[in-house]
């Protein structure tokens, strides 16, 4: 009985210590005098490996999700003679929910796991310690550019995802199933609002970018430096980041559209 209570207490203390370590890591990495000339090439490098290389999976899955939305929406809406509403259905679903959320989930799987594994291996092979030996702050040199790269890349990826998805819905709805093209766009334009839908979607993806990148870096930086530890940290990154994204999405949706 006492053991169980002690275990519970240890778990609570561990999670609080973990949250504190994550916050400290982020603050140390981001605060401090910015050195633009040194950090810009590093940022470019990371933008390339985090953002540009995620482009293919984002575009392909965006296209297919848009096409599936068009197909499923059409078969239901055509029963009510309301297939003109296909445009706003596809656009609102993508801009408000699917764009930011699916991008964040894919990003956690594609880029987040890679970040954790990379930093975990750096720690296991003591590259981080040797950087410190050479008086280079690993937080500024390794963590900070990766954080900013993820933070900038994901909203761009989410916007691309939504745009490609809407085009996929257009391909299936208008080109294949024969919804009137003018009605598809004009009904969409009359129900999609710049501030209400597009900007709120972008705000969501910025929040997700912050959370997913932060979790990935923290898990890598604080992992147990063994092969088992790295594999656990990578798994835990994907699971924690996905759950955090889905939970936060509910809260943000309730705040924005509730």
């Amino acid at each position, binding site marked *: 009985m006492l053991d169980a209570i002690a275990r519970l207490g240890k778990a609570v203390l561990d999670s609080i210590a973990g949250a504190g370590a994550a916050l400290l890591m982020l603050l140390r990495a981001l605060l401090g005098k910015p050195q633009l000339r040194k950090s810009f*090439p590093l940022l470019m490098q990371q933008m*390339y490996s985090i953002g540009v290389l995620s482009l293919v999976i984002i575009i392909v899955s965006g296209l297919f999700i848009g096409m599936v939305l068009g197909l499923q929406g059409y078969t239901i809406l055509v029963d009510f003679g*309301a297939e003109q509403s296909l445009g706003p259905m596809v656009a609102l679903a993508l801009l408000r929910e699917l764009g930011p959320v699916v991008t964040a989930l894919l990003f956690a799987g594609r880029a987040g796991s890679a970040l954790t594994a990379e930093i975990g291996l750096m720690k296991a092979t003591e590259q981080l310690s040797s950087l410190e030996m050479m008086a280079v702050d690993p937080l500024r040199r390794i963590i900070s550019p990766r954080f900013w790269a993820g933070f900038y*890349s994901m909203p761009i990826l989410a*916007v691309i995802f939504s745009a*490609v998805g809407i*085009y996929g819905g257009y391909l299936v709805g208008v080109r294949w199933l024969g919804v009137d093209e003018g009605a598809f766009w004009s009904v969409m334009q009359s129900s999609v609002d710049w501030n209400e839908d597009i900007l709120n979607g972008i705000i969501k993806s910025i929040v997700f970018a912050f959370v997913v990148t932060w979790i990935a870096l923290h898990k890598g930086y604080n992992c147990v430096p063994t092969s088992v530890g790295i594999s656990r940290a990578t798994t835990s990154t994907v699971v924690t980041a996905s759950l955090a994204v889905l939970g936060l999405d509910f809260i943000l949706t309730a705040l924005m559209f509730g």
Partner: protein
Amino acid sequence: MESRTTQLAVGMFVIIGVAALLFLGLQAANTSAVSSGETYKIYAKFDNIGGLKERSPVKVGGVVVGRVSRITLDGEYYEPLVEMTISATYDEFSETSSVSILTSGLLGEQYIGLRPGFIDDTVELLKDGDYIYDTKSALVLEDLIGQFLFSQGND
């Protein structure tokens, strides 16, 4: 440092992102009406426009010839005034034409049905800025039910 190709790729990435945002803003959201080709405007006053919106289509016999470009209240009695932008390809409508607000399907969007009038020597063709006086308002379901109940009660 192999920065040249990396920078190019990141630059392309950002450009694609901006292009996607522009696509969303211009094509998916309601920002500006981009109409292609030559157009002219005609006006019509209604008692009630129902669910008509800006950018709703104007159709002749089911064929789209233009779009509603503006809806305002006009005159001292605040009558709804609808501005329609018609493609200049179709410029042979006479002043005896009539417009009515119709619904596509049972639950569909509302649009303006334009019925061309007869043409002979005594009538003129509609020009840019002209008004169509023969208009029929939107059917409002509640009014219809009310009229029906009222006529039932008289029997």
